[in-house]
């Protein structure tokens, strides 16, 4: 099936998410959509999948103009999409997830669909148990399930929005193989991603979006630099930071265990020294989150001891940790990091501890003015956090950090940021290391960890299975560790 | 009060605790007021019903009285025991207006200001008749009494019921005293307030389910009759005796043995005449039935309307009972009578005084149920 998009428009108020996009996807090919954050990739795909209404433009399927408004219509026309954030039902079983949307009526159809599902699983030699609850699956498995469901609907064109975030290289291989297989069976695949590597590995052709418009497209073999310039204007400069010598021990953990995420954390023992920049590698939810939250004093360890500068912190409350200069920035900004309905100015007033009973509004205002200036946050003191873009929210959070912090705990600090913002963030953080602040960050992107961290902890199933200096290891070795092989 | 000028009508106000159309206590008062309008020309009634904190949250008696006085009321009647404090307070605020508190005793206790009088009917006679027919009818000898809240008045009425029943059981039917069971269950107020009072429907059902075949209602509403109707539909034998209102048996002739009712007209008229003449005085009026014809609307404050389920012979026995009471041949408040705890209420041969009857400190020996909210 051949898809052609003509002069597609999607506007959110003043924001032109898609602004006159033309794009053609040939039958039986794998087509890559590249672009920085907010380039308009997801939006375009959601329109194509009928999930959101378009503001203007035409969708042409096999030379016929098609006008549809719901995902149902789209899948009836053979178009199905794997969304950036998985749209399934964690509390229900795999089989139930598979059935919802296909099965109707009141007669019990479980058996028929069980067969159907098991056939598909075998066909792609996946390993999913139809009877476990989806919340027990890994992100990768959830994608697989979703894909099988779409295929069982008779999908001709499969759209995947950033399917490679947060899944292991093994799962990624499995996924890519099945995609290749689909293409060979004559189906079209559209792959949305930030990641050049993925597109290069898989796609027959890529189209690059930027600020809602097509900046170019390219056949195999690809010229990485040219693609980068299409994505970001000029190719981004790789981050550099001058080496610092470490000071005394900031944080030391002994046999710390804790609950949380899927795996929890078990018997973790490390020391962190002033000025160290430590990267936490591993699949999403292998214990990094718990580790960071325990270190930040948000989660209480079930056993083991933890101390700052030699002072035992066990039994101390969050406040004590703050006093010790620990700062934690969560991955999800609006969910965990900021107050969506509060203005930038109110955020500063809130941060301003002090014991005064009344709020010093004028001070807060002036401070927010200068900080937004300094951190290049696009917004006025009265802009509410929700109205800021993802990157600007990240900048706002960083601008709220106090200089006196001794330990920075950052959960995926560059998640969803484009390369420029990313570089800016690292440049900013490196200044903290110079001030003898220890920085611990987690990331799903190995290359990033390799380029930034000078010490790397690899998490697997809630344990640290590798703890090395950056210059003593390489990507291959880490990748294996992440997959559980040491 | 002062004599009303001939041209402008004499307005009197009525504060009803329940709905004016409740087929019970409040409707009896409402119709009493209508009777006044009919019989004394140039009188006009204004009323407000459901005057109780559950139905009218935030409303106080003085506030309502203020309003009625504004509307020109020169005499105001409060028909419920629990308006006692409010009406007294209001009477103090409006010394130029006359007040009647039904079932109160401020005049006896001397707490009443000069412009507040008390009025009540000797319902114990009505209740005796109710108890009488109940005992005459009951097959199982188990009589249930659906009591409202516990106070002197309700104890008095429940006890009168029991005395009537005991008289029928022992003297008329010559049955063994031990076989008569008279159970009083209090719900907590004059009518059901969900989550506040016990549910009279459930209480009545329990009576019938556990062998009681006659339920006498001491409350203002008609649950007893409704449930009895349900029970005969189920094929059980069930009778009920409502309270307060002459029409309470309507549509329930299959189960209703009769109803002891108030006829407020005569009492109202006497007070309003006085007030119009400017001779209103603080007095305590406790009116008896007109024994010549207890159902005479112009003269008898207490009546007993016979119900469709009353058997002929019971009816005859009842007539005899009534004439004996009327002739004074029979006074059930005659000693020896004992309180529930065995202490003496009336010594042998002693006849109770009005005060002794009015202030009934406990239920009588032989009745079961709580004597006071402990």
């Amino acid at each position, binding site marked *: 099936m051949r898809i052609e998009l003509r002069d597609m428009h999607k506007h959110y*108020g003043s924001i032109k998410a898609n602004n006159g996009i033309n794009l053609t996807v040939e039958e039986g090919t794998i087509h890559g959509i590249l672009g920085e954050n907010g380039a308009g990739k997801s939006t375009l795909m959601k329109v194509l999948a009928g999930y959101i209404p378009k503001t203007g433009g035409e969708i042409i399927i096999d030379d016929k103009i098609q006008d549809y408004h719901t995902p149902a219509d789209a899948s009836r026309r053979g178009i199905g999409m794997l969304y950036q954030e998985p749209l399934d039902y964690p509390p229900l079983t795999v089989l139930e997830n598979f059935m919802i949307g296909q099965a109707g009526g009141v007669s019990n159809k479980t058996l028929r669909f069980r067969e159907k599902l098991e056939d598909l699983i075998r066909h792609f030699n996946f390993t999913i148990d139809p009877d476990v609850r989806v919340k027990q699956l890994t992100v990768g498995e959830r994608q697989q399930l979703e894909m099988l469901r779409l295929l069982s609907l008779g999908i001709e064109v499969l759209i995947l929005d950033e399917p490679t975030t947060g899944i292991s290289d093994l799962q990624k291989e499995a996924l890519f193989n099945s995609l290749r297989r689909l293409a060979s069976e004559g189906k079209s695949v559209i792959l949305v991603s930030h990641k050049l590597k993925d597109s290069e590995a898989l796609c027959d052709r890529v189209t690059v979006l930027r600020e809602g418009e097509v900046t170019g497209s390219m056949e195999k073999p690809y010229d990485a630099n040219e693609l980068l310039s299409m994505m970001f204007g000029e190719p981004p400069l790789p981050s550099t930071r001058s080496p610092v010598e470490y000071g005394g021990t900031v944080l030391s953990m002994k046999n710390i265990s804790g609950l949380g995420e899927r795996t929890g954390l078990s018997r973790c023992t490390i020391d962190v020294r002033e000025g160290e920049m430590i990267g936490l590698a591993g699949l999403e939810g292998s214990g990094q989150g718990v580790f960071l939250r325990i270190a930040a004093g948000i989660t209480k360890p079930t056993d083991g001891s933890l101390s700052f500068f030699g002072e035992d912190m066990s039994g101390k409350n969050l406040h004590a940790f703050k006093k010790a200069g620990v700062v934690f*920035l969560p991955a999800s900004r609006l969910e965990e990091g900021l107050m969506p309905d509060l*203005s930038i100015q109110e955020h500063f007033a*809130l941060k301003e501890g002090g014991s005064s*009973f009344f709020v010093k509004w004028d001070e807060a205002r002036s401070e927010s003015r200068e900080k937004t200036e300094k951190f290049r946050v696009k917004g006025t003191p*009265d802009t509410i956090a929700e109205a800021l873009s993802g990157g600007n929210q990240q900048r706002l959070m960083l601008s709220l950090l106090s200089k006196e912090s001794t330990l920075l705990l950052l959960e995926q600090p560059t998640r969803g940021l484009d390369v420029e913002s990313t570089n800016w963030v690292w440049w900013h953080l490196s200044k903290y290391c110079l001030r003898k602040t220890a920085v611990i960050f987690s990331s799903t992107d190995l290359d990033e960890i390799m380029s930034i961290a000078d010490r790397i902890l690899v998490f697997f199933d809630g344990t640290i299975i590798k703890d090395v200096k950056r210059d003593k290891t390489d990507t291959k070795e880490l990748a294996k560790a992440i997959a559980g092989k040491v | 009060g002062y004599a009303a000028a001939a041209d402008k009508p004499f307005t009197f106000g009525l504060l009803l605790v329940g709905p004016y159309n409740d087929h019970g206590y409040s409707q009896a008062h409402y119709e009493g007021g209508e009777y006044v309008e009919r019989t004394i020309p140039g009188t006009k009634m204004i009323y407000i019903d459901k005057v109780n904190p559950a139905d009218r949250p*935030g409303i106080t008696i003085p506030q309502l009285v203020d309003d009625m006085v504004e509307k020109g009321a020169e005499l105001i009647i409060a028909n419920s025991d629990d308006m006692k404090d409010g009406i007294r307070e209001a009477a103090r605020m409006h010394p130029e207006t006359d007040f009647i508190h039904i079932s109160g005793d401020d005049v006896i206790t001397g707490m009443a200001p000069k412009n507040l009088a008390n009025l009540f009917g000797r319902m114990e006679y009505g209740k005796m008749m109710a108890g009488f027919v109940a005992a005459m009818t009951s097959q199982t000898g188990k009589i249930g009494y659906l009591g409202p*809240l516990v106070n002197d008045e309700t104890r008095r009425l429940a006890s009168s019921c029991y005395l009537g029943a005991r008289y029928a059981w022992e003297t008329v039917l010559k049955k063994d005293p031990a076989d008569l069971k008279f159970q009083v269950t209090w719900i907590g*107020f004059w009518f059901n307030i969900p989550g*506040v009072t016990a549910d009279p429907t459930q209480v009545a059902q329990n009576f019938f389910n556990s062998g009681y075949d006659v339920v006498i209602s001491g409350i203002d509403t008609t649950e007893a009759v409704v449930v009895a109707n349900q029970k005969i539909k189920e094929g059980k034998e069930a009778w009920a005796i409502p309270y307060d209102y002459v029409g309470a048996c309507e549509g329930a002739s299959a189960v209703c043995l009769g109803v002891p009712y108030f006829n407020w007209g005569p009492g109202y008229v006497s007070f309003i005449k006085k007030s119009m003449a400017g001779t209103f005085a603080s007095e305590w009026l406790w009116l008896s039935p007109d024994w010549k014809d207890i159902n005479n609307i112009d003269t008898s404050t207490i009546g007993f309307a016979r119900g469709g389920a009353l058997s002929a012979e019971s009816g005859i026995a009842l007539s005899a009972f009534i004439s004996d009471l009327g002739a004074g041949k029979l006074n059930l408040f005659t000693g020896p009578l004992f309180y529930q705890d065995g202490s003496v209420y009336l010594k042998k041969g002693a006849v109770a005084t009005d005060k002794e009857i009015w202030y009934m400190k406990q239920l009588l020996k032989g009745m079961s149920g709580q004597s006071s909210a402990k």
Partner: protein
Amino acid sequence: MQESNGINTSVSRRDNAIARFSRDLVITVLVVVSFTTLIIVLAGAPPLAAYYHIFKGSLGSWVKLGHVIRVWIPLTLCTCGLLYTFRIGLWNIGVEGQVIMGAVFTTYVLRFGMDGRMANFFLIAAFTAGVAGGALWALIAGYLKTKGGVNEIFAGLGLNFVAQGIILWLIFGPWKRAGIASMSGTELLPRELWLSYVSTIRLSPLGLSLALCAIIVTAIMLRYTKIGLCLKALGSNPNAAHIFDLNTRLYMLLAMVFAGGFAGLAGSMQVTGVYHRLIPAISSNYGYLALLVAMLSNYNVWIGPVVAFFFACLNVGSIQLPMMLQMDSSLSGVIQGALVLAALAVHAWRIRARRIAEETWY
């Protein structure tokens, strides 16, 4: 609700806000009036007469105005309290029970002063106790929420019924009048313990000034103090509390204490200023009504009292309906509910309109 971006100046925002507000008001009122009229006609009564009597019955004379204000005082107190809990995103439906417990604690203290000596001392002590009682009852709900993880709505509801049980038990049990157990409540307080009032309009100046203070204090607390800011922040996103080192539980409890305290004060007013004794229905549903007031005033501390006054007028005036038109007075409740619904509808409709406008922006 929030402006799409902070660029336009606060001034222009304010006056078009006012314009919007007045337009909404008109629409809402129109909707409600037509709805109510329909209901009244359904009940077979003359609508105009009904409205006339409600108006005359509430503002027709000084005495009536006094009655209105006497209702307005507890209503306003409860509303002020609720603003704190709404700020932090708690639905303190337990306010009803908090009023009751305030009244119970007040009565408990006053029972020691039944002989009428040292009246002022006992009154002050009683009001303090009332505040404490309400706050305590709110704290229980607060702890159930923060420690027990019980949704405050159900905790509150449950506690309302429990409070109802306690007050009944006291009135029919330990605190009953000698030999009598009746809904008419506990023994009447001696006159010394009644809140003094101006007899011509039956209005207690102390109560009035308390209510006014409550409004001002609340306004300042919410706008200019750390506490107010923190409540707003946590209401916006409790998950980010740890970033700003805010103790969510502490502030939840704090908000509950404020709400309960004001509610308890309302309870004290009911006992000392209105009924002069403890009755089972002492709360007069002002707690629930205050929730409507808060919603209708869009949680605004200045609009709140105005709405409260209007609601009080409805409550007092509606007594005329049964007297003059043989209609049930619960019409007032219908009108109040309809108002809130209509307001919500208009509000929603505005948001829709704005979104559609943006969708079609080119």
